[in-house]
């Protein structure tokens, strides 16, 4: 069994147990009631999206440093999965905000930063699609990824000064252990799933790059022999 399948199985198992604990075992929150249970997917989404962007930044630096294409494969995997989780994060947050704050959106520091972050990294993917050739594509994506990653703390800092409503982070010391357990299980579950997904995406990128490296006459010959 390869590493990706192992990650998927572990991830699904952990997420299933975590979700069960989150929905049925953990106590409801005193003020928000059952609505708070969305935290068991919301907080892991945020953590793992941030982690993936950090990985993408690392891969981008490695690519610029070494020029090796395998970093580009991993970088695009990390960014794509990160953007999807980031989008989910925004939707979950919006639902939670509607239920507890009474509004779908607020210009609070974490909401605004998450939105800007999603747009920044989606921009990297757009630039990627537009690049004129393969070498440009990987270099440009790496440059845009580095700039976007450095920009995120600046946005956070700036919006924090601008205004704030979102609660500050809780630490495990102040949270009921029955709530910490499902949160941890779900976080690791999502981490494994996201890593598997990233590796899969990287493998697809590698295959398509190799396919495009095959000279056209050979490719036609291969296709013809496949049809024959």
């Amino acid at each position, binding site marked *: 069994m390869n590493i990706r399948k192992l990650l998927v199985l572990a991830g699904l198992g952990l997420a299933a147990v975590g979700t069960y604990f989150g929905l049925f075992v953990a106590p409801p929150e005193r003020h928000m009631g059952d609505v708070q249970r969305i935290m068991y997917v919301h907080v892991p989404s945020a953590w793992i999206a941030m982690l993936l962007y950090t990985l993408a930044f690392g891969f981008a630096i490695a690519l*610029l440093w070494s020029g090796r294409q395998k970093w580009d494969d991993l970088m695009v995997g990390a960014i794509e999965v990160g953007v999807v989780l980031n989008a989910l994060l925004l939707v979950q947050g919006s639902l939670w905000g509607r239920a507890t704050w009474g509004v779908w959106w607020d210009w609070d520091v974490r909401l605004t930063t998450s939105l*800007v972050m999603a*747009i*920044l990294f989606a*921009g990297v993917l*757009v*630039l990627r699609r*537009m*690049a*004129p050739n393969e070498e*440009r594509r990987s*270099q*440009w994506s*790496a*440059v*845009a990824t*580095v*700039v*976007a990653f*450095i*920009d995120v703390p*600046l*946005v956070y*800092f*700036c*919006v924090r*000064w*601008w205004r704030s409503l979102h609660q500050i982070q809780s630490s495990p010391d102040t949270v009921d252990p029955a709530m910490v357990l499902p949160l941890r299980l779900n976080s690791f579950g999502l981490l494994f799933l996201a890593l598997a997904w990233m590796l899969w995406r990287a493998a697809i990128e590698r295959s398509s790059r190799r396919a495009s490296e095959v000279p056209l006459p050979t490719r036609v010959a291969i296709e013809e022999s496949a049809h024959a």
Partner: protein
Amino acid sequence: MSSLLALLSKDLLLEWRERARSLSVLLFAVVTLLLFSFALGPDVETLREATPGVLVLALLLSSTLALNESFRLEREDRALEGLVMRPVSLTALFYAKASANALLLTFLGPVVVALAVVFYSLEIDVATMTRLVGLWCLGAAGLAAPGTLYAAMTSRLKSQDVALPLLLFPLVVPVLLASVKAMGLVLTGDAMNQLRSWLTLLLAFDIIYWSVCGLLFRFAVEEGE
């Protein structure tokens, strides 16, 4: 350093010879100012309150025009390719281009601020106006560095007019916020003594963008362009 100055004077000479182009950027900024006045209504009070935001947006929108233009010329007749083949460092090329763009945007400042004073009946003295122009310049510098980096990349694309704002606008949110806040404090009075911190923030962004983008530029434009 000497190559940086030579490149910068080349860029400024180009701007001077193509005055019509620079003037059209200025005219665009003025039109933006005008459009915001129509959108926000004739009430002077509302307009006065929105002035910092309108000024910064005028700067932001006209910056994409200026940035796109600055590399369009270099791509024409493959001038950039010739430049890259010369023994000048790409870092010098970046700083010259970014400085020229920052200067062009700075030059819009006094005119647009003066027009805002007239259009929105701002009752401010010369010192306040100078401070507004100063903040405009800091904002322009914050836009010019990442703008030049991205324009170098997007200028190779057919859809450069779409790509540049798409990539640049979310990136410069910190510059936009800090400039709007600082301009607002200059206009309405700084009772809580916050101006200094926003100014420091804006300066810090400028320094970060100028250094990071300078480092990355050689990956965006490479030998054999």
